[in-house]
């Protein structure tokens, strides 16, 4: 089972939205994955335990270099974008 970390600057709004979105898509596609969300400050300490980081373009730079792939999403509520960008990392 893969573990996904969704990061946004506050860990309250967009990351939560995106997390729900990814969870929903995974459920529909029958993919078993754990999705957690957090704020940018907490991310570095948590990142090592995850297989994939998903975030917005603005924050991607700060989350690279931890040895975990980082995927950026423009539309946080679009199932299509999640299917295209995130799912291939979870199979």
């Amino acid at each position, binding site marked *: 089972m893969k573990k996904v970390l969704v990061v946004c600057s*506050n860990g*309250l*709004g967009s990351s939560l939205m995106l997390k729900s*979105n990814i969870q929903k898509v995974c459920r529909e596609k029958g993919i078993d994955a754990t999705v*957690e969300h957090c704020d940018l400050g*907490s991310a*570095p*300490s948590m990142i090592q*335990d995850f297989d994939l980081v998903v975030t917005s373009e603005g924050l991607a730079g700060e989350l690279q270099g931890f040895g975990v792939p980082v995927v950026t999403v423009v539309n*946080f509520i679009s199932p299509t974008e999640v299917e295209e960008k995130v799912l291939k990392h979870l199979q």
Partner: protein
Amino acid sequence: MDGIWTERRRRLAEELLRRTDPVTVTRLASRLKVSPRTIRYDLDALQPWFQEQGLQLSKRPRRGVQVMGPEERVQSALRQLASRGGNPYRHPLRPEERVRLILAYLLQDAQNTRVRVQDLADRLGVSRGTLLSDLKTVEEKLAAYRIRLLRIPGYGLKLDADEFRWRQAAASLVFSELDPEHPDRSFRLAEAPKLSAPETVPSMASLLPRELMATIEAVLSGFDWEPPLSDRAFRGLAIHIALALLRLQEGRGVWLPPEQLAEVKAKGEFRMARRLFRALEKRLGIDVPESEVGYLALHLLGAKRGPASIPMERSPREDMDPPLAEVVDRMIRIVSESFRLPLYLDKELAEGLIIHLKPVLARLKYGLPVENPILDDIRTHYPQIYAATQKAVFWLERVVGCPIPPGEVGYLAMHFGAALTRVKQKTLSSRRILLVCASGLGTAKLLESTLRSELPGVEWIGTTSVMQVAKTIKSRAVDLVISTVDLDSLVKDVPVVRIPPLPGRREIMQLKEGLYLADSLTPDVHLVGELMELIQRYADVRDADCLADALRRWLDGRIFFQKQRTGRVVNVPMLDKLLIPDNICLQAECHTWREVVEAGAEPLLRQGMIEARYVDQIQENLIKHGPYMVIAPGIALLHARPEDGVREVCMSLLTLNPGVPFGHSQNDPVDVAITFGTTDNESHVYALSQLMELLSHPPSLQRLRKATQPEEVIEIIRPFVRKGGEKE
């Protein structure tokens, strides 16, 4: 020096100290009912003591003896004498002593002969007025046994009591004369030292012959009591049996209504009582009627059992009527809530209460009174515990359908008090706690001070950030980490308890639960092992590793409590509770993103759900971090952090016509702005996930964009509220 003292010499010294004129040895001898020679010996023996007190004992022929010296010396000598304990004859009796003696006197005599108020007053050495006011207290005491004190003009006092009530009152009076908390008195009556009471009003206890008590106590000790009798119960039984035998000799048997006797005969306690009396009948050569056996069985039903801390073979819950376990559970919850401590985790409390309540219910049912000599102490020293217990008792009263006397409440309060101490100790003692807070400094400080007041007695190592936590744990001895974020991977050897940055009552309670459990369950390797062994004894396990893993996870869940979904839904608002018509503004016209933020926040600000600084903070975040809040084409999710000035969870919807650019490379312009505030990391999750469902459903989003009336929006929201609520 202490070796000189006898009761007679004490009285002699006091007599001399109180007199201002000389008194002859002959007179002293007649007062103390000894020979003049004894008095002379006593005076010689006392001489050094008087000198030590700075006083002089002068003896002059024919005039007599007299103590000479300054008044303050005399007073201090008298105080010293008083501290040696005294003879109630000389010292004025305390009111409660008088009441006890009056009760003893009335119970012994006022059933068959008349007792005159003046006689009583004379015997106690008090005025008629004092005695009359004492009688009021006596009447109240007797009323507890449903005995009436009749004052018949021209005749005197008489007791209106049948044998059943008389026995109850007499037994409890004997009991109170022999205070079991008094260390110098053995709880066995046969060994108890003689009590000092005025000769004219013998105490109730002195009526019980020692040989008889010794026989009864020998028989009682020979029985196998399961569960064991408490000291009080042992003594209570001995007294009841002795009174029964004495009263039978006087031809005063007890009578029970036939239906009550039949009911009691069906119980195990009746068989026990019969065995007890059989053993005594053999030894004493007497014959005990069945009603007496029934009476003793009633007493056994209401008797307290021994300390619950002795582990029992069988859990008391097993053979209990289910309602009692439920009643206890409910009572424990009520008291837990009052103290905000998880008393329900303390097994000893539930077990102790169940054992305790069984005789309580029997006492209530058969109208047996309860003696609680320390009720006043409990009320004075533990008023909060008593009050909380009373709250729990209101509920018990509803179940049993009759009022519960304060004496019983007092005993229950003692159970709760003991559990409070245990839970507090287990929860808080010698814990070194590190707080990890990912939020800003303000929240961390507020959280820390909240926790400090909620968890007194723990050692706070301090507050640290997520980045620093591993380092801090390495350099300092940490027993427990309390964290506002998930530290799963970071902290390996120390238990971590999660808590929201602004914890509510429920979270605090859960934290305490976690602390309590963390103590006993942290090294749960053993626990999992034990559980596995137990399971494997009765079941074939297909995949032992998987099961062990699942058990470990389940235990972890109990220790590091996570989101309690069912419990939480109550507090967490759904989308329709937040997006009310007042918070919906449609087809608005704004020129800049700043205006959008202000317009979106306006209804929340107006209702006092957020503070003005929250709006500033949103704008600042947008400047600092760029337009990251534009989460999808045309959609902005505007918010800051709880500590930036959120008073309650809230949300507003603003649609814009035309759209306003926020500076996002792909998602501009924004025509749907959602502004929200949340008080912690979780209170908004349901509403937000329902909103996500709505926004990712193109037809609904389309309708939302076009809507002109708030009511339309409410309609659009409705299906998503139900859907989302069920899912999460």
